[in-house]
């Protein structure tokens, strides 16, 4: 199913995104007031929330141009060394900009 983003479409989608996110904020508390969330479910949810980001990034890295790949590599390296997201993101963007200006 897809929806046009013209007119009200975009607003409806944003409202739905808000509702889904609110459901995640309320859901854990709500479920816990009936039954405790088990070990296996916690493991699955934890692994899934990281995996979804990786799943988004993988095609970006494979189909992107060299500037995109250099940007991602730079971000990963800075993040691993400095452990601070802001310099890591800034470094990645700068790397892509430099590559496109110079290459």
């Amino acid at each position, binding site marked *: *199913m*897809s*929806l*046009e*983003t*013209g007119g009200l479409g*975009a607003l409806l989608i*944003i*409202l*739905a*995104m*808000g509702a*889904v*996110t609110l459901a*995640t*904020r309320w859901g*854990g*508390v709500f*479920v*816990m007031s009936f039954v*405790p*969330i088990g070990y*296996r479910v*916690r*493991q*699955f949810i*934890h*692994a*899934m*929330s*990281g*995996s*979804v*980001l*990786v*799943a*988004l*990034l*993988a*095609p*970006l*890295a*494979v189909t992107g141009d060299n500037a*995109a790949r250099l*940007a*991602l590599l730079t*971000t990963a390296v800075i*993040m*691993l060394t400095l*452990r601070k*997201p*802001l310099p*890591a*993101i800034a470094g*990645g*963007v*700068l*790397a892509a900009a430099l*590559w*496109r200006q110079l290459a």
Partner: protein
Amino acid sequence: MTTRETSPYRLDRALVWEGFKTLLPLSLFVIVFGIAFGLAAAQVGLGGLEIVLMSTLVFAGASQFAALELWGPQIPVFTLLVTVFAINARHLLMGATLYPWLEPLSPARRYGIMVVASDANWAMAMQAFGRGQPGLGLLLGGGIALWGFWVLGTWLGLHVGGAVQDPASLGLDMVMGCFLLAMVVGGEKNLRMLLIWAVAAGASLVAFYHLPENSHVVVGALAGGLVGLVWGKRE
């Protein structure tokens, strides 16, 4: 033990204000992320009102960036909503871990506080509870700070973005990807997580080339989740 009454369940205006002030330095960084989001959102053709509305209502950075990745003239609604749910599913765990301290509150307060629950204020609140101190003020006050500055940053980014002629030549099209990657790399790192990520990436790529469009996010997320389920970690 002090004789002063510092029940971890306490929640009053002073504690909320304390929480707001405690999260203020971090919130200044949140402004920068907000600017990055506003910039990226303007590039994919979202209108100003919609961009600010999204930050106001969703208030979850990674899932908002992910939504931009799927944004276009036509949007796969199901995929988008599943993606948003999967990225934000960690809120379920936050709610579950906070439950012992939220339980004594009235339902209105309990669910009201959770509206602004996010990574940073949840972590600070759990630390406070761990020390036997009140944490609900950090959760609510800190959440209000993070939320306010996220929306403010988004609004600022929107106006910066409008002034940039060719965002790609400045590398600004990579803001989104670099943000998501920084979130991944900044998380837990060990052999188990590495395997989970590798399976998620592999499954995503297989789906990207061989399965219907946009299914790669859901396929990768489920594959990674299953590895986490099979290779459980001791808590």
